[in-house]
C-alpha cells in the first residue's frame, strides 16, 4: 500500500540531491537578500489583498473566512518531458470521457453490455434525461484534472472536473503576481508562457459563435452570481475572454434563441460558458429552481442556435466510481491502454473490490458511486452504490512556513482545452498545499513548466478576423449591471449624506457647555437624522436629554446599524459590478471602505466616530473622483452618475425641507446649517462675507447651476444624463427631471423676490419635501424603463395550489 511508503519529495531525490529541474530556481532564491523570501511572501499577500480578490464580504460558503487564500512564493516545477507525458495522458482521458458521455447520452451500449453499472448513471443527479438522444455533443470543451504524485513517483488523477473547473483565473493571477514579486526567479528559469492558451480559447469561442454574430453578447459566461465562492474567478474569466458575464436573470429564451437583456434590447447569445450545474440550467425541463436557470435554454440548444460549454449533461463524467472502469473502457472505446492511472478507486459492487476495501477500510474514503460532490459517506446500505477512493500520500514540495522552507504535500490541477483539432494542456496550473491533516488548504502555488531549448510549441495560427468597425458606444450593457451601477451611485451618495449629517450632530453634541443655539441646531439635525432613518422616534432628544441620541449615533456604524448595513450594500454592489471596473478601480472602491467599516465598528467615543465619518466622506469623494477620471462616459458611467445625482438631489431637498421647518425668527440658524451640510460655507463667505440672508443662501444651495452640492445642479445633471442614455435616451424621463429642476429654480426665485424673505423661506418647507418625493418617483420610473423589473418566473403544474387534485393528477 502506498501509505506505508515514504512520500516523494519534489525537490530532493532519495539520496538527498537536489533534482536538476530545481537548480536554477534554488540558485535564484539563494541570491535573494537575507530573509528575502519571507519579505517577498508578505509582498505577495499585500498584492492579493489590494487586488481585492479577497473581497470585502465574507463568502456565504465559509462565513468568517476570506474567499481567497495565500500564494506561496515557491512555485511547483515540472520539467518539459514530464509535462508532455501528463498532457498526453490527460488528453487521452478527456477523449475517453467524451466517448463515455457520447454513449451514455446516446445508445447506452456501455450500460447494456455491463461495462458501466447502472448505479453510476440512473441515480446520478447529473444524468439529464432530457439530453438523451436530443442534445448533441461534443460534451467537453474544457477539462480540469487534479493529480497527486504517489510514493512510486507516478502522477495519478485524483479527480476530474468538467462543471465548475475553478482555478484557471487563479493560475493566471498567480503567474502575474509571481512575475512581479519575484522577477529574479522568473528570469532564472525558462518557463512556458500561459498566454497562448487563453488566446486559443478566445479563438475557439469566436469560431463557435460564428463570424456573423460579432455582437457583444455572442459569448456569455453564466455565473450563479455574486454570492458564489467563485464569483471573482467568473469576473476575471469573462474579462480575459472578452465575453459578457450573465446571471440567469439576465437571460431569456425566445423562439429557440437565447438572449441577453441589455439596455439596447435583447442580444442573441450563441455560446454559453456555463458555471452552473447542468441540472439547474432549464427549470422547465430539468426541474430545479426557476431563479437559477432559464426555461427554454435546452430548446435553444436543440434548435442549434446555442452551444453550451461544457454540455449541460457533462457532469455525469464526474461520477466518483467511474475511474474504476476507465482502464477497461479505454481499451474498449479507444483501443488504447490508459496512459495516466487514477488514484486507486474501487466500485464496491464488485465482490473482489469489496473484499479489498474491507481488508483495509481506513485506507479509503467512501463516496456515492454516482453523485459527484456529495462528499464522503458512511458505510451502510447496498455496496453497489459506493465507491472507495484510496487515501494516497501526496508528494512534498518546498513551501514557505514562517521564515523557512518546509516540505508540504501538494496536489496539482491542470487545465485542458479542445481547440477544434485536439486537446491542449495549459503549461501551468494551480498547485494546492495540503495542511498537516492532508486537507487541501488555503495556500496555492504557481506551477512552472520548464521549457527546453527551442522546444517551444506553437499553437495553430490566430483566427482571421475582419478589421473591427470603430465603435464609440459603450456596447451592450446588461440591464442588471445598469441597475447595480445606479444603486451603487445612490448608496455611495447616501453614505456620504449620512456621514455629513451625523458628523454635524456629533460636533454639536461635543460642545461643553451646549448653548441654546446648539440645542436648537441639534433638534433640527435630529429631524433630518430621523428622516434619513439614522435614528428612531424614541431617540430624538427631549428637553436637553440627548443620551439616547448619542448612543444611537455610535450604534449606527456597528453590526446591524443603519450605516453598517449601508456599507455592506455598497460592498455587495461593488462586487456585482466588478466586471465593469478595472483592478485599480475595484481596489479604490473596496479597500478604503473596508477600513471605514472597521473604524466604525471600533469607534467607542464621539471623537473616534467623527474620524470614522470623515473617512466615509473621503471614501465617497474618492469613488466620485475615480469614476469621473477613469470611466468612459456613457453606459456604465451614466447610470452610476445618475444614481448619485438623484440621491443627492433628494437628500438636499429633504435636508432643506426639514431645516426650514422653523419659525421665520430662527431662519438664520437653518441657513447656517444648510450651508454647512451642503459644503458651501466657504463659497458663501467669499461671495457675501459674514452677512447671512435667506435669498443669497438659498440661491447658492438651491438654484446656483455651478454649485455641485446644490439642488438644481443635480436635477440638471440628471436631465442631461437621461436625455443621453445610449441606445435609448428617454424624452419623457428627461422632461420629468427638467420640470423638477424648474421647480427648484422657482422656489429660490420666490424667496429672492419676496418682501419678507425669511417668511418666504420657511414656507418652502412642504414644497421641498414634496420635491424629495417626486425625485423618488422619478427614480422608480427610471427603474421600470431601463432595468425591466419583470416578475420572477414561476413554475406551473407542480405546486400544491396549481392543480386541483380530484380523481387524479
Amino acid at each position, binding site marked *: 500500500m502506498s501509505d506505508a511508503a515514504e512520500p516523494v519529495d519534489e525537490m530532493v531525490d532519495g539520496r538527498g540531491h537536489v533534482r536538476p529541474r530545481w537548480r536554477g530556481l534554488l540558485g535564484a532564491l539563494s541570491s535573494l537578500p537575507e530573509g528575502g523570501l519571507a519579505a517577498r511572501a508578505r509582498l505577495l499577500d499585500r498584492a492579493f489583498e489590494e487586488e481585492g480578490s479577497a473581497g470585502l464580504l465574507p463568502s456565504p460558503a465559509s462565513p468568517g473566512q476570506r474567499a481567497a487564500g495565500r500564494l506561496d512564493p515557491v512555485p511547483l516545477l515540472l520539467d518539459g518531458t514530464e509535462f508532455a507525458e501528463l498532457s498526453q495522458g490527460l488528453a487521452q482521458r478527456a477523449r475517453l470521457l467524451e466517448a463515455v458521455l457520447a454513449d451514455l447520452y446516446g445508445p447506452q451500449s456501455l450500460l447494456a453490455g455491463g461495462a458501466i453499472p447502472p448505479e453510476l448513471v*440512473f441515480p446520478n443527479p447529473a444524468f439529464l434525461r432530457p439530453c438523451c438522444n436530443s442534445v448533441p455533443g461534443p460534451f467537453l470543451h474544457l477539462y480540469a484534472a487534479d493529480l497527486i504524485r504517489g510514493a512510486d513517483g507516478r502522477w495519478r488523477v485524483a479527480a476530474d472536473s468538467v462543471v465548475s473547473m475553478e482555478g484557471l483565473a487563479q493560475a493566471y493571477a498567480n503567474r502575474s503576481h509571481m512575475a512581479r514579486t519575484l522577477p529574479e526567479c522568473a528570469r532564472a528559469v525558462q518557463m512556458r508562457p500561459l498566454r497562448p492558451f487563453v488566446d486559443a480559447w478566445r479563438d475557439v469561442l469566436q469560431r463557435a459563435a460564428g463570424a456573423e454574430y460579432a455582437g457583444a453578447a455572442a459569448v456569455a459566461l453564466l455565473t450563479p452570481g455574486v454570492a458564489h465562492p467563485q464569483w471573482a474567478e467568473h469576473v476575471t474569466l469573462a474579462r480575459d475572454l472578452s465575453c459578457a458575464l450573465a446571471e440567469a436573470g439576465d437571460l431569456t429564451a425566445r423562439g429557440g434563441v437565447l438572449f441577453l437583456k441589455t439596455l439596447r434590447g435583447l442580444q442573441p447569445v450563441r455560446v454559453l460558458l456555463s458555471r452552473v450545474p447542468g441540472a439547474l440550467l432549464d427549470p422547465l425541463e430539468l426541474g430545479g429552481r426557476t431563479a437559477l436557470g432559464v426555461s427554454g435554454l435546452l430548446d435553444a440548444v436543440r434548435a442549434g442556435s446555442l452551444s453550451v460549454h461544457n454540455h449541460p449533461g457533462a457532469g455525469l463524467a464526474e461520477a466518483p466510481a467511474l475511474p474504476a472502469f476507465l482502464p477497461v473502457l479505454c481499451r474498449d472505446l479507444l483501443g488504447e491502454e490508459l496512459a495516466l492511472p487514477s488514484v486507486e478507486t474501487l466500485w464496491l459492487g464488485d465482490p473482489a473490490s469489496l473484499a479489498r476495501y474491507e481488508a483495509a477500510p481506513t485506507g479509503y474514503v467512501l463516496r456515492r458511486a454516482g453523485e459527484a460532490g456529495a462528499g464522503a459517506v458512511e458505510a451502510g446500505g447496498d455496496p453497489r452504490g459506493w465507491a472507495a477512493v484510496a487515501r494516497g500520500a501526496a508528494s512534498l514540495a518546498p513551501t514557505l512556513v514562517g521564515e523557512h522552507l518546509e516540505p508540504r504535500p501538494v496536489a496539482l490541477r491542470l487545465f485542458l482545452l479542445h481547440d477544434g483539432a485536439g486537446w491542449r494542456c495549459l503549461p501551468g496550473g494551480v498547485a494546492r498545499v495540503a495542511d498537516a491533516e492532508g486537507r487541501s488548504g488555503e495556500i496555492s502555488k504557481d506551477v512552472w513548466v520548464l521549457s527546453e531549448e527551442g522546444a517551444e510549441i506553437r499553437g495553430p495560427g490566430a483566427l482571421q478576423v475582419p478589421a473591427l468597425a470603430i465603435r464609440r458606444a459603450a456596447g451592450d450593457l446588461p440591464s442588471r449591471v445598469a441597475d447595480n451601477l445606479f444603486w451603487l451611485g445612490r448608496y455611495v451618495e447616501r453614505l456620504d449624506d449620512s456621514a455629513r449629517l451625523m458628523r454635524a450632530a456629533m460636533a454639536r453634541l461635543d460642545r461643553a457647555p451646549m448653548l441654546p443655539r446648539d440645542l436648537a441646531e441639534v433638534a433640527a439635525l435630529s429631524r433630518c437624522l430621523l428622516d434619513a432613518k439614522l435614528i428612531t422616534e424614541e431617540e430624538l432628544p427631549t428637553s436637553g436629554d440627548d443620551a439616547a441620541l448619542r448612543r444611537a449615533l455610535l450604534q449606527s456604524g456597528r453590526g446591524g446599524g443603519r450605516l453598517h448595513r449601508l456599507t455592506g450594500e455598497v460592498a455587495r454592489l461593488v462586487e456585482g459590478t466588478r466586471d465593469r471596473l478595472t483592478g485599480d478601480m475595484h481596489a479604490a472602491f473596496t479597500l478604503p471602505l473596508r477600513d471605514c467599516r472597521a473604524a466604525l465598528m471600533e469607534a467607542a467615543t464621539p471623537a473616534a466616530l467623527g474620524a470614522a465619518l470623515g473617512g466615509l466622506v473621503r471614501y465617497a469623494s474618492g469613488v466620485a473622483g475615480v469614476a469621473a477620471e477613469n470611466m468612459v462616459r456613457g453606459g456604465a458611467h451614466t447610470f452610476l452618475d445618475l444614481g448619485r445625482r438623484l440621491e443627492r438631489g433628494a437628500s438636499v431637498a429633504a435636508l432643506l425641507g426639514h431645516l426650514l421647518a422653523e419659525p421665520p425668527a430662527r431662519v438664520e440658524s437653518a441657513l447656517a446649517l444648510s450651508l454647512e451640510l451642503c459644503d458651501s460655507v466657504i463659497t458663501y463667505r467669499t461671495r457675501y462675507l459674514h452677512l447671512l440672508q435667506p435669498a443669497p443662501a438659498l440661491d447658492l444651495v438651491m438654484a446656483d447651476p455651478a454649485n455641485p452640492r446644490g439642488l438644481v445642479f443635480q436635477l440638471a445633471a440628471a436631465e442631461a444624463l437621461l436625455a443621453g442614455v445610449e441606445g435609448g435616451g428617454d424624452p419623457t424621463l428627461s422632461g420629468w427631471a427638467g420640470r423638477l429642476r424648474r421647480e427648484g429654480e422657482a422656489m429660490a426665485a420666490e424667496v429672492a423676490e419676496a418682501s419678507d424673505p425669511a417668511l418666504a423661506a420657511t414656507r418652502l418647507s412642504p414644497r421641498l419635501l414634496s420635491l424629495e418625493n417626486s425625485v423618488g418617483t422619478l427614480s422608480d420610473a427610471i427603474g421600470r424603463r431601463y432595468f425591466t423589473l419583470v416578475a420572477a418566473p414561476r413554475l406551473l403544474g407542480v405546486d400544491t395550489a396549481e392543480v*386541483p387534485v380530484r380523481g387524479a393528477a
Partner: protein
Amino acid sequence: MIYRVRHVTAYAYELPVEMATHLLHLTPRPLPRQRVLNTSLSCDPAPARRSEGLDHFGNPTAWLYLDRPHARLTVTADSIMEVTAPAPLPTATPPWEAIRGLALARAEAAEFLFPSPTLPPVEAARAFLAPYFTPGRPVGEAAVELIADFRDHMAFRAGVTTVSTPVEEVLRRRAGVCQDFAHLLVTGLRMLGIPARYVSGYIRTRPPPGGVRRVGVDQSHAWVAAWMGPEAGWVEMDPTNSLFVAEEHVVLGWGRDFGDVSPLLGVILGGGRHSVCVGVDMDEAAVAAG
C-alpha cells in the same frame, strides 16, 4: 375497444402573463396494445413556437412557447385509440428476490430501480408491502394479492392530498387519490428491488355491462407498472381500483414519478394569481366499422 378522449386544461390569470413556456404530456403513447388512430393538440392563444418529440422515456412530448401577453391559456388534446387487453400474467414468475439481479443487467428495467426526484426511499412504504413478499414467493403471486387487498387498506378520498404530498403522509392518512397510491406502490416496490414506474393516462367512464363504476373517471388517472422478470416484462396494476390493467385504461406515458409525465408543466413570467380548470371526457366510440 375504441375510445375517444378530450382533455381540456384552461388557465385563467389575474394579470397578463408576459411570457410562458409549457411542456406537455398529453398525447397518448403508441403501444402494441394501444393503437393511436388519431390525435391532435390545440392551444389558444396560438403559441409563437411549438415543437414536438419524444422524451427520454419515449413518451410523445410537446413544447409550447408563448411570448405575447395573455390572460388565459386553453390547451385541448383530442385522441382516438383502439385498446386491447395486455397478455395475461404468466402463471409462473420468478421469486421476487431474484428480480433485482435480473433487472440490473437490463438498462430499460434498471433505470426504474432507483429513487427518483420526488420519490426518495420511505421505510414505511417497504413495510406496507413486506407482508405480501414472503421469502421465495413468486413476484406475480405477491402482486395479485397486494392489488386485491389494496382498497381494503386505503380509502379513495379527494382533496386531502395534493400533487406533492409525500408518501409518508399518504400512509399516515390511509387515504388519498390515484396518484398517491401509485407513488406509494412505486416507492415500496423499488425498495424491494422490483423496478416500478408511474403510468399516466385515463380510465373509461362507463363500466362494462354489469360492472361497477370505476374511480378516477373524468380526470387524469395514474397507476403502476412493475417489471416481473424477462418473461412477464412490465405488468400494469391499478391500485386505486384494485385491478390489473385490461381494456379499460388508456396510456398517455410513463416515467419515474409524476414529475416525468406531468400532463402540463409551465414556467410563466407575470400572471399574478391564477386558476385552472381541467376536464376530461372519455367515451367509447362507435365500434369501428370494419
